[in-house]
């Protein structure tokens, strides 16, 4: 089976309190040198059939209409290699 990954991140101009909370905590835990943190979602989709262009187009549509809310989020779709 083939795996497609959809990454969904808040648009850069949208405040990301989860990422900020992580960023604020890191130095307290002794991890310095990290200028910015953004937190998003990662979806791993296992396809039944082959990952051809048609399949990818459908997944892109699912991401556009469903997995991401494009009012606030951007997404990328990619085939996971080496799995």
């Amino acid at each position, binding site marked *: 089976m083939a795996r497609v990954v959809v990454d969904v991140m808040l648009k850069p101009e949208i*405040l990301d*309190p*989860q990422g900020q*909370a992580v960023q604020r905590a890191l130095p307290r835990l002794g991890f310095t040198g990290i200028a910015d943190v953004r937190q998003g979602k990662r979806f791993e989709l296992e396809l039944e059939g082959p990952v051809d262009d048609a399949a990818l187009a459908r997944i892109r549509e699912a991401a556009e209409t*469903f997995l991401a809310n494009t*009012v606030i989020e951007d997404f990328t779709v990619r085939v996971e290699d080496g799995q």
Partner: protein
Amino acid sequence: MTTRVGVVTFPGSLDDRDAQRAVRLAGAEPVALWHRDKDLHQVDAVVLPGGFSYGDYLRAGAISRFSPVMATIIEQARLGMPVLGICNGFQVLTESHLLPGAMLRNNHLHFICRDQKLRVENATTAWTSDYQVGQEISVPLKNMDGRYTADPRTIEELEAEGRVVFRYVDVNPNGSINDIAGITNAAGNVVGLMPHPEHAVEPLVGTGRTDGLPFFTSVLKQLVSS
């Protein structure tokens, strides 16, 4: 003829019975609508209640937005039927683009349950005509993803057209832009807000206030007079 107000139950809706009670206390007949049923059973208006439909998994309101009943509601809302989205219902309304913008996680990242003061900014919508502009009311607020956001153009438009219906007063509980607690569409028939007016309809329970009742009497009047 009594006015029929539908209250949708999605899987995971929680405040549906509360919304029905509020409708009843306002003098209308509550009608339970089921998410899988496209038919609205001749209701005159619809409430999308609070809760965690589909567990708020993926995003609040994202999955319920695609239910069969929503297809009909979206259609009817465009034709002018009054629709009120409370909390999760508001999230469903933004996800289905009946209202602009989107809801993000509260800026403090916690669920928050509190008695929240609001200012009424628009008393001309189907759901707010029994209020006065500038009136301050207190109703319970309880949510995890209540931070309203939209792009600057949309915000400008909402503000310019007076479509911000409620604003948080004293405390902004979640980081919403411009303290926005609730908005309406251009026609004024669709209203969404994060706080829960249906939990402020009896002096005995909740916060012991009835500040939320005018929502339900407003729509009743509008429907009777139209």
